[in-house]
């Protein structure tokens, strides 16, 4: 379990959590990025434009 940085609600986390994974907060719908796994730490996932290179 971890806390949503947007609404403060508890967010349930599945096993095999990976750094970088995006978890949706089921309470407020915020997209949360897994910053660390031991212990689990979440932050607001950045908005990123879809783009590409060569």
């Amino acid at each position: 379990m971890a806390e949503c940085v947007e609404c403060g609600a508890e967010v349930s986390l599945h096993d095999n959590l990976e750094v970088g994974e995006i978890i949706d907060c089921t309470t407020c719908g915020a997209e949360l990025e897994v910053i660390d796994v031991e212990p689990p730490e979440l932050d607001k996932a950045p908005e990123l434009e879809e783009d590409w290179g060569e």
Partner: protein
Amino acid sequence: MTTVVKIGGARAVDPAGALADVARLVEQGEQVVVVHGGSTAVDDTLEALGEEPTYVETPGGVVGRFTDERTMEVFEMVLPGKLNTDLTAGLQNQGVDAIGLSGVDGGLITGRRKSAVRVVEDGKKKIKRGDHSGKITDVNADLLETLLGDDYTPVVTVPMLGEEKEGGVTPVNADADRAAAAVAGALDATLVVLTDVPGILADPDDETTLIERADDPAGLERIEDAAEGFMTKKVMAAKEALSGGSPEVVVADANAEMPITDAVDGGG
């Protein structure tokens, strides 16, 4: 009139006919800027070095290269290194006073670096950090105009110069079609995109439904509806060129005998 010609990189499009055609146009007093990519050659060199190219899928379904630090090194080796040097020498062999430049040189193509991308891996959405890519916002048109004015033919490639959020700059990956579009827009130049398909087919199964040129966003919309797969990237680039100031964008068959001359003359 200035013409920006986007040619393929290594494998996809043999540039020999294109180079001869550039030479013909320059001989006639036309100002030409050549822009090239070379993604497949980057992959070949990565593999020759025993490394695996990394491709990621975005949530929107676009598959693109993830350019980590090592990939950026190889990118520099292949694009401004081997391909640009060979194309520049190839044009000089045809009597063109070509001068090779990457987007880094003189801040030719600049914009924000993007170091993180959203990807989908094993069905999971993720933020992947450490990417070296960027979004083009500026072109140093003065540099190109000075060189064109002195009768040089610039041969331009990526990387572009990426501005870091915390200040500083670094070479980053950008799509060569969009780089060509940005250059064409900045120079108010016609953009000719050479590919190995002769344009865009309104009906992909019927070659008589070829749509080849657009000179306004409305004409482009027709093409956009017809474009599929990798062609959507070309259409995106075309849109950027037109909104940037290009009077016309032509997608032309690189394997035609005089692909650029035909495209500029309005033939097909």
